[in-house]
């Protein structure tokens, strides 16, 4: 699974499937369950799907960049730099997750959504961003950088 283009394709497919599960199958019932002050569940669902979509795209693109970078001949010559690149990407994913949550919060400030629902939303965004990046790079990093991801 760490050979290209297999890792590229699996990552894109996995990101897509994950988005369908979270945004379509889980997102519908989740938006119905919310007690919204003014907006309809359909309006919230639209924003929710868009935010998860952006998270998924950023997560996938970051993984693909890591695979490309990990395959470069220059990378094997400087694994310290590779480690810095991985950690930078990982932290960037966490920041993206927080930023996307805040965008969704600002879009629905007047709706009075419970904190517990925002936590669930953050968990779903995280699933597409830093967790997705960690999981994919943990399993599918190119051989040269196979042992760089956290806990590997």
């Amino acid at each position: 699974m760490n050979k290209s283009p297999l890792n590229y394709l699996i990552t894109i497919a996995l990101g897509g499937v994950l988005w369908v599960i979270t945004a379509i199958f889980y997102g519908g019932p989740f938006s119905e369950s919310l007690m919204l002050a003014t907006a309809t569940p359909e309006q919230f669902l639209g924003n929710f799907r868009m935010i998860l979509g952006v998270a998924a795209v950023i997560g996938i693109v970051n993984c693909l960049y890591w695979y490309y970078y990990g395959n470069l001949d220059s990378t094997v010559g400087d694994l310290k730099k590779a480690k810095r690149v991985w950690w930078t990407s990982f932290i960037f994913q966490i920041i993206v997750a927080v930023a996307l949550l805040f965008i969704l919060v600002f879009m629905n400030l007047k709706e009075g959504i419970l904190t517990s629902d925002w936590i669930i939303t953050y968990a779903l965004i995280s699933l597409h961003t830093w967790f997705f990046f960690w999981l994919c790079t943990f399993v599918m990093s190119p051989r040269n950088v196979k042992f760089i991801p956290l806990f590997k």
Partner: protein
Amino acid sequence: MPKNYLIGIGGTGARVIEAVINLCAAGYGPEELSVFIVDPDAGNGNLTRTKSLIADYKKCRDALKRTPDNPIFKTDIKIPPDEKGFVWEIFTDKGSTLSSFINYENMKRKKKELADFASVLFSNQELDTQLNEGFRGHPSIGSVVMSNPDTESYPFKMLFDDLAERKINDVKVFLVGSVFGGTGAAGFPTFGSKQILKYHPAAKVGENKSKILLGGALVLPYFTFELDNETSEKMFVTANDFPLATKAALQYYNEKDLGFDEIYFIGDSLGQKVGKFGVGSKKQENSPHYIELVSSLAAFDFYRQEDTKETAEKMLFTASRESTKISWDSLPVSRDATVIRKEQGKLKTLLTTMTVFAYSYLTFGKKILATNHRDIKDTWYVENFKFNNKDQQDKEKDPRQNPNKDPLDDFEKFLNNFLFWIASMDDDSGKVNFIDKKVLMNGEMEKGKPRLFDPENDVTKNNIGQLLKNEKSKNEDFRIFKNKLNDVKLDKRIAIASDKYLNIFYEAAAAYSKSNYNVESNNTK
């Protein structure tokens, strides 16, 4: 299987054995080889270097379990059981002279006519000069004292013990020495005479048949050295004496019916300098020279013969260069014209791979071993060295700890000496085109401590791709070598950490050499 013997005579003999050992380490050698040296100068720098190299070779060979494709250290080098028996020093007492050896004072009293005859053959200086540092360019002295080796004690005992239950020509004995010095010039024709080895009663099997197939490489002048004007010695040989000594010796070989079946005459007209003059002892330590490599190839060609007639025809071999430059494809590797190119390719492949292996191991390999286990993220390392370094039970899986540390230290020492040897052949003249020492190490070489360039440095990362002098290559940098390390799929039977570590580096070196230098690794069998 026939037995192969190599007997080095004098300083040149020791240096040729040094080349043989390095070639065997690279994987270019017979399956088995018994070696010993004849030299009265036990403290001779060349001899000390060779003795130490053989000891290191044996340690490395004993310690290493190789993958099936890894040919290094495949030759089982045998030496006499005790280290002292490895060299026949001829004299048992320090301060021996020819006079004391033939009991000249006693002779003068009891057999005056014999003493008078001795005084005609030898000058007073020759009779009274101490010989523990060699025969100083006077082979006539050496031939007297070497004519009766003790076959009941080592090292000759090893050879004569092996003769039992052997067939005709089954023991291949190869002598190597110089024609122009003292010990070699005396020992070569002495041991080559029919009665000493070839038709010794233990070797003779009927009329003109022997268990010993006797070959030899007679090394003609090939180097010069700087004369030390401050020496207090009165009797010694200088480079100016070489041509006359050679002419006289060749005339002797032409006229005398010796016991050799085959002789290789090897020489060189480049006259490279190999260091400062030294009469003997530690001072006589010269830089390795490509002619010693060529002499080793002659020995291997001799051992390779499979079908030798019972009464072998006498053969003389010479080879010469087509230009003033020496390269891989000008090395005389075989008597058989149909296999010369293949053998040259094999030699080039093995020496290139060994050089890449030694260089990468001594730089990057050592650096990794000096790094904390947990901080290493290189794939080849993490995949092959899984252990908890806090667990005592797991420590034997750590290449930094014993039982792995000692073999790796032995390899470090051997590989340093290998690089010293192979790089020394590059004499800056631009005429010897094997390994380019300028891309390998910084400054002048010091034996055992070459200051190698860091292959991970941005400025010198391309050096590994340019090791072959005046040869085309892809100039792949060290990052490509690291990729090759990651690509190594190690044989599951290699379980000991030090074996894994060394085999990974060798296999990566073989893959890198094939890719960058276009040398054929499947050509090495």
